[in-house]
């Protein structure tokens, strides 16, 4: 039986990918960000999970608004990293496990989560920005990813509570997979930021800290918030933090926070956290 051994919360700021590719790991302005991922990368190297399930969002790259899925699961032996306007990144394609992805799709749909599936499409920085900070990519990635995209771009988007329930359904899917795989669930996005309009550059550190504390102690409270609450408190695009709640649903019950790094340098409160079931 497959098993969820932990959870990771991480920002997916595209600039992290740019800084990574330019080798800014030791640049004094970037080092606090990269160093903050080291304990999580070390934990992954020690625990050796077979798969990372990514709750992430597409940024109108894999899909366009003419047909925009609310929830979509990727299936394939590999996933190319998308060109988002600046050309291809020097990274190998991310690896997938077809049987595992299909099992999750079947389990979710039979569990009344009617998820869309996609194949043979590149994936953008929603997954690719944080992945190389978590896992080495030379000579190749040490495991597979299961990408689950959540629409947080074009309203109506799923409620915070629905995302939490998706995580609970994912757990049932993982725990009904016959192989003894170790799985880590990753929730991406946030924390506070706004990237459009005259309110661009908005942050709220106090709310970010409250979110991180409630996330461990009382996630129910976070599932009750409306999108408008997230937009007002953390900036318009911080509403994507509902994807963290999908990860929290998959770790239902008590959890321990093993690591937290919070670095608000310019416009997004870049954060990484690590959780294990208590």
């Amino acid at each position, binding site marked *: 039986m497959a098993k969820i051994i932990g959870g990771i919360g991480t920002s997916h700021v595209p600039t992290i990918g740019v800084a990574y590719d330019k080798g800014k790991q030791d640049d004094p302005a970037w080092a606090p*960000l990269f160093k903050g991922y080291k304990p999580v990368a070390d934990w992954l190297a020690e625990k050796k999970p077979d798969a990372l399930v990514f709750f992430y969002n597409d940024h109108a790259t894999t899909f366009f608004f003419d047909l925009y899925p609310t929830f979509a699961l990727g299936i394939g032996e590999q996933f190319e990293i998308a*060109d988002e306007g600046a050309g291809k990144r020097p990274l190998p394609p991310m690896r997938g496990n077809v049987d595992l992805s299909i099992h999750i799709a079947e389990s979710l749909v039979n569990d009344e989560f009617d998820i869309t599936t996609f194949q043979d499409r590149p994936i953008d920085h929603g997954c690719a920005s944080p992945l190389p900070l978590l896992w080495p990519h030379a000579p190749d990635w040490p495991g597979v990813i299961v990408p689950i995209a959540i629409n947080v771009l074009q309203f109506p988007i799923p409620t915070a509570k629905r995302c939490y329930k998706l995580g609970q359904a994912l757990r049932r899917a993982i725990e009904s997979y016959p192989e003894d795989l170790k799985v880590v669930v990753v929730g991406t996005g946030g924390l506070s930021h706004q990237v459009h*309009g005259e309110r661009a550059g908005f942050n709220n550190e106090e709310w970010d800290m409250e979110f991180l504390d409630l996330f461990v102690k009382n996630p129910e409270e976070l599932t009750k918030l409306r999108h408008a609450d997230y937009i007002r408190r953390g900036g318009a695009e911080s509403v994507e933090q509902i994807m963290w709640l999908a990860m929290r649903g998959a770790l239902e019950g008590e959890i321990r926070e093993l690591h937290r790094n919070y670095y608000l340098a310019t416009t997004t409160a870049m954060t990484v956290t690590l959780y294990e079931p208590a």
Partner: protein
Amino acid sequence: MNPQLAGLDDLEGTYVFDLHTSNRAMKLNRFLWKMIGTEARAHFSKDPEQAMTEAGLSDTEKDLVRRQDWIGLIRAGASFFVLEKFARVAQRTNLEVYAMMRGETFDEFMATRRVPECR
């Protein structure tokens, strides 16, 4: 009104991208979105007017693209996430786009940030 979004009317400088906006600005957003393709980028670089006409942009939208009026494009219904693809083609970083949307110079904007060197 989507009840998940109710109560944001007084929140200035925020333009929620919902299906109403998306439906209204579909051509503009598709034009910006296509900048993830090398052929579309080459076509736009070679003949921007032709590329905009083929995409079915209105005169107002064409003008906003020509002037790289980022806040104007957002107000016209562009999603930031396709706008940033066009920003790559226009050789602008997201930080520069944020500054212009706020009506500030780049230096003014960066002076409001905690670690201005982090770029």
